């Protein structure tokens, strides 16, 4: 069975001990942790804070599935783009020390990337190559997340990045809702199956959240099981993936206990 986790900054806690205690108390066994968002600690994470984090993870038996370092690796300005990539690389040592599943990022909103997806793809691929080189040196995986409104926005582009970068250290974080559009949402089972079949071998973690469509086709979030997401169709694909982290995003802590019970029911 997969392991259920939470995005840590959906919870509040002033220290790793307090924060992980709350998350574990609700029944989650994994986290996605962005140090700056949860603790105001920037990368590279100071060694003393890594030790404090490691102790709290161990105490609460939580697996650090994803170190969140969401950057913009496809900016047209070379200098700014290198700054983003280098920031990502500075998160790798903490991931290594904490035995994290990966360091995760998305790939830059298309508008920010200059508006031309084909022009932005080589920039993205070059950035991911640099990230992968560093990841190989550190012995850490990196997780890249396709998003419909971003440079890497569909299955084909995701596979293109994987192929052109050519590193076994590059994996995929699959946020099914982030890939949905008005066009694909009507056949969620078919779309999810297509994504899963393409990503299966590279999957390092999944995100789980719900959504509705507004009149402009945007996807504001909704409480899990109350929006448009076909949760059952999605989770049934991965119910046999032993140890795969399924990370709840945009969780409302007061609802977590009930949600976990409902998710586990589907995963049985």
């Amino acid at each position, binding site marked *: 069975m997969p392991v259920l986790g939470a995005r840590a900054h959906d919870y509040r806690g002033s220290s790793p001990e307090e924060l992980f205690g709350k998350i574990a108390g609700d029944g989650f066994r994994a986290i996605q942790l962005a140090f700056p968002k949860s603790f105001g600690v920037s990368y*590279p994470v100071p060694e003393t804070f890594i030790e404090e984090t490691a102790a709290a993870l161990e105490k609460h038996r939580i697996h650090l599935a994803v170190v969140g370092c969401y950057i913009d690796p496809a900016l047209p300005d070379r*200098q700014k783009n*290198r700054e983003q*990539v280098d*920031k990502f690389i500075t998160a790798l040592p903490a991931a290594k020390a904490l035995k994290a599943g990966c360091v995760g990022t998305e790939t830059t909103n298309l508008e920010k990337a200059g508006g031309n997806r084909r022009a932005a793809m080589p920039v993205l691929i070059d950035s991911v190559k640099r990230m992968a080189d*560093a990841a190989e040196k550190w012995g850490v995986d990196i997780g890249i997340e396709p998003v419909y409104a971003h440079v890497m926005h569909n299955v084909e582009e995701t596979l293109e990045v994987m192929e052109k970068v050519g590193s076994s250290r590059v994996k995929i974080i699959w946020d099914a809702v982030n890939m949905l559009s008005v066009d694909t949402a009507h056949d969620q089972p078919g779309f999810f199956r297509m994504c899963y079949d393409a990503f299966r071998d590279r999957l390092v973690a999944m995100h789980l959240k719900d959504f509705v469509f507004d009149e402009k086709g945007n996807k504001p979030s909704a409480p899990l099981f109350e929006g448009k997401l076909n949760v059952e169709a999605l989770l049934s694909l991965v119910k046999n993936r032993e140890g795969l982290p399924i990370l709840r995003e945009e969780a409302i802590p007061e609802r977590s206990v009930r949600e976990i019970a409902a998710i586990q029911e589907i995963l049985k």
Partner: protein
Amino acid sequence: MAYGVQMYSLRDAVAADYKQALFTVAGQGYKMVELFGGMNPDAKTIRKWADEAGLVISGTHTGAASLTAENLQQTIEDHHVLGCNLLIIPGHDLSTKEKLDAFIEQMNGVQPILEQAGIILCYHNHSHEFYPNEDGQIIYDQLLSRTSMKLELDTYWAYNAGKDPVEMMEQLKDRLCAIHLKDGFMGGEGMPLGQGTAPVKKVWQKAREMNLPMIVESETQRPDGPAETGECMKYLRSLED
């Protein structure tokens, strides 16, 4: 603020005209120089040129081969002539336990002799000292715990290895004899100060707070060494504003 420069930053200019290279960095506002590559020309001549240029020779990058039994005395004499009390090992092949043990034994053997001669023995890092070597040893940790060598922290290479150089400076305190100020991108691509992603400004602030000698080492020579060291000095002056 008084800054130094590692002359390797303008190695082509040094090869073409050593004396002129010294006058160039002096003209740019550097007050100290760190030498590299042995005594060529002889120490007396280099000292004379440095004096004429108004430069202090704050350190030398001197390989471990200069510290063997047969070379040690000459190395000490050269440092006395240069008026320089900082001998910095610029790097060494420490890729196995055997090599590391031999190096540490050599350093622990020569350090008291150098000390008696008024010379401080230091080590300058790159990035590989922070990764496990072939036998799983972290070289930097080994040097810290098994020698009492001082350390010249190259802040860029430490950053490139995923370390926070400012945190390291705080931890190393009195083990530090100087720092190298350097900029660049991750992956070993150097840049003039202020143009890379290394935390140069924070390092500069910390070095100032700790009263540590700051030695610029900027290695790209783009468009050439003197232009790059000049650009670095401009950046340093901008931090003082």
